[in-house]
């Protein structure tokens, strides 16, 4: 069965940022694993997540649903009133994933960075 692998790192910028690197395809079979991992990190005190997608070659709609659920968990269910999530940002999506992000307009909702330091320092 398809699985996801996670690597968790902690970085200090303006705020403490958890860098969650995912490896594998995020689809209907695996999206819950990602959601559960995020819930576990948030329970342990994580407030800001930088989701590193450099190891993800496929992301279906279930993956985008999981990312939305993560933004919801991080905001405590409250709408920030902002058009972009201040708590969740994306790092380095692969070409096929970047294409889907663009088609669905997810870049309207989430900041996407290519550079890890720049991404970490962008959280306020």
């Amino acid at each position: 069965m398809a699985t996801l692998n996670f690597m968790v790192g902690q970085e200090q910028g303006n705020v403490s940022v958890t860098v969650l690197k995912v490896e594998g395809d995020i689809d209907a079979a695996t999206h819950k694993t990602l959601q559960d991992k995020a819930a576990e990190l948030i329970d342990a005190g994580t407030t800001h997540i930088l989701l590193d997608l450099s190891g993800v070659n496929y992301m279906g709609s279930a993956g985008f649903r999981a990312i939305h659920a993560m933004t919801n968990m991080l905001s405590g269910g409250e709408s920030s009133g902002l058009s972009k999530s201040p708590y969740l940002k994306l790092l380095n999506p692969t070409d096929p994933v970047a294409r889907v992000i663009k088609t669905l307009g997810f870049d309207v909702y989430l900041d996407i960075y290519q550079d890890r330091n720049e991404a970490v320092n962008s959280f306020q």
Partner: protein
Amino acid sequence: METPLTSTENKIETLKHCAFLRGLQGSVLNSLAARAETLRVASGETIITRGETGSAMYFIISGSARVHDGEVIWAKIKAGEVFGEMAVLDSQVRSASVTMESDSLLLSIEREVFFDALSTDPDAFKAVLHGVLQREREIVSEIKTRSAKLLSYQKELEIGRRIQADFLPGSIPEIENWEIAAWFEAAREVAGDFYDVFRLKTSSHLAIVIGDVCDKGVGAALFMTLFRSLLRASSLYGYTDSAMDKSDSTATTSEVLLNSIVTTNRYIATTHAGSSMFASVFFGLLDPDTGRLTYVNAGHEAPMIFRQNGEVELLDITGGVMGLFPAANYQVETTKLNEGDLIFSYTDGVNEAKNMDGQQFTEERILKVASPESNNTENFIRIVLEAVYEFRGEAEQSDDITMLALKYLPRAPVD
């Protein structure tokens, strides 16, 4: 060490009370009990695995287990019941997996031991055969019950399918100088795709909508009805500004459109935030007299305008998918269709249709097969559809297919 539960007497008791062995003589039971092995197994331990060969059958002395194939559970069994007996009797591979659901005590009997014991009594085979048939009758009865349930679910789904069909336009309005055609083909009984064509109440504008709710099946279908209804209701009845006038309609048409998109998005993103369900939507308001099209593309595949001069214009996204973020911003864009131009919108069941090798049909192939100048809209859709079918070959339809095409008919020259 022999404990009360593992004593020979107790083993005999276990075997005697198992329906499968009912009718066996005491001597046969004694012989089986003497050579049966007692196993202590922990909750969560898988004792037999589907598809593997095996030579033992197991009687549950205490505890419980599930008979399953992966995550699909076929039956729950408990003390006094047997499993693994089929592979012992017919020497085939295991037909199901069995995993303990509590710390349990089992009796294990090897095929060789079983047949040895049976051979000591001429009536023993008859008794076992009777036990096997008894189980078969129980299985047949269970299948009958499940088939009846399945039939009832299928009926419910069929009702759902018929009700959902009402959420697509029953007929497409006839508009002078315009030709409109649509195609809708669900991959399952119920669908997440939708399209809509209707006249606004407050102006002569024609609303054209195409959308695709994420995911498939009943969940997507429920949200399809929600998206479609909110978009229709908010644009038909939610904004009755008297300033909306045909003479200078651009600004107010944008307002009606934006109000409909923003209201629908905010409602679903707020009320159904926990579902994380979203839809890509293209929503356009067309002035049939001028060909002016005011639109929002919320994360949807870019509709294509085939110009009469051979050029193709793509109506790229002007915002993200709907239903997730309440504060989402959408831009309204306008374009103009001229006489002879055709606009084609579709869902990803077209460009992402897969062949047997897993390759996708792609937007490029749509552009390659499309021949707008020599065809009416129905033919245009048919040509794309046939190309998709041919490309897909034997591969299964994995997603709903929806297409909507409008053509601005060239007016006949006035003599």
